[in-house]
């Protein structure tokens, strides 16, 4: 007798997104640095901000931090990053 199974999986199809175009240069750009609020993230980003400004001529650096690393960033926080040409996220300890 033929067997019919009922799928236990998430049937929703994920949509593939293409990555945003890469920047040709950092000079004159606005770069957002997102700290996910793990210990040590700010040290890395402080140094990165310095390098971006001094070595790559970045015009503006926007610094934001997630309220907690355990949860997705709130929509209002993502909204603040919208104007940046690129975002660099410090992911872990």
């Amino acid at each position, binding site marked *: 007798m*033929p*067997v*019919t*199974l*009922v*799928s*236990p*999986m*998430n*049937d*929703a199809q*994920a949509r593939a997104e293409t990555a945003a175009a890469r920047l040709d240069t950092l000079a004159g750009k606005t770069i957002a640095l997102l700290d996910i609020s793990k*210990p040590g993230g700010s040290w890395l980003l402080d140094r990165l901000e310095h390098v971006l400004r001094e070595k790559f001529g970045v015009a503006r650096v926007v610094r934001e931090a997630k*309220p*907690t*690393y*355990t*949860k*997705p960033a709130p929509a209002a926080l993502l909204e603040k990053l919208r104007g940046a040409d690129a975002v660099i996220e410090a992911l872990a300890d």
Partner: protein
Amino acid sequence: MARLLAFVQSDCPTCRLIVPYLNALAKSGVPLKGISQDSEARTREFVAQTGAAFPVELDDPEWRKSKRFDVVTVPSLVVIDEDGRLLRLEPGFDKKAINEIADLFGVPPVASRYDGYPASKPGCSSRHLEVPAEGEAAPGLDAFSAGGRPAREIDLAGDDDPVEYCFRAFHDALPVVPPTRTRLDRMLLGTTRDPLEVIGRIPPCYGAATVQKIAANAVMAGCRPEMMRVLIPLVRAVCDERFNAHGVQATTQFAAPLIVINGPIRRELSFHSRQNVFSNVARANSTLGRALQLILLNLGGARPDGIDMSTLGNAGKFSFCIAENEEASPWEPLHVGRGFRPEESTVSLFAAGSPHGISEQAARTARGVLKTLTYSLATNWSYRACRAFEVFLVLSPEHVETIHRDGWTKQNVRDYLFENTGVPLRAYEGTDPGEGAALRHTYREIVIDGEPCYQKFASPESIKIVVAGGTAGKFSAMMQGWASGAKGSEMVTYPIREV
């Protein structure tokens, strides 16, 4: 005669949370009207998705109705008299306020303190206070529909072994009971709910857990149909944002959702609470724990070879379900301590690491046993990390007997462990003091046995206690929590009521 207006928005989670309570008010005869701050299409979708059973009309494009009552937050409940004058305005979701409003209209309370949902939750800002965005907003994700789609059906080729097919198609590491149409139909006899009702969306990929999908995974785990009674509130619990399954499922740490069952359901469905409580001792424990894991994997998408990044994992990810041995405990059980009545049944979830055994076979007094526990508790998470992490303590009946014989209550125990668990200041000396040292300035200094220490836990409530296990053996266990509290994962307890 007074009337109630409920200001809502279609994409506000708190507005969705409040709808069932508004339905109950309307059903009790409260003259109630919803005022939506969104377009007709969005509002229609909101009503269809949430099952709002009261009239909902639109505010005008200038939000004049909202402005008239100075609504700054949605939801807002506005009570007005027959002349339209404001009598009361309640912003956000607050069970106490909802019941006070019910009382104002002379109807019984509609919001139970212990229905599993939070006592209160802030809302979103009113549309007229939002910064206007350019262009048309993208359609919202369907994160809220109360109705789902029927599950896909798969016809197997005649020579295909269903068990082998499940290995290939569903990728679980253990064999499963193939979820055939016949078995699914039998499982659905365990509930009166619509098979397409969405009970929750499972993080981190937010697959819709319809009753049918829950049942299909329950079949695979080997559950009996009666287990649907527990699975429905369990899925609600794991989707509760306070539990934060998004983080628990993806973390590199050890956490896995530990299920704790309390109340009469233990006997009704033969949950085991005695010897080998963490082991493969009873079908109810093992299959419920396994069903939750399959639901998390198959609908939530955090697979152990993918989004679930746990460094070492946790044997509890096969199955992690215990029941409290309430019969062997002289104290109030877990659910009573969390506000439920003893005769109610509940399912609780705690993001737990693996059980870490604590032996104490020599001590003959409460203080003796508890002192031993403090030494193990001091190692929770990482020895020198204090305050940020909770712990789940499973006390064995023999240890409890010794402690209780000296007249100690559960609260006495929690208080003693809180006051007497610490890490000596000398442990922070040296050039590379390690994890926990950077936050020393936030720790509380106490003296334990004459030695200056940092207090290990933030509060007595950071130490969760249940009694479980066999009556022979002076062995208890602790399980480290994950990032604890509102910034991580909070323990949640849901009542088991549905049939």
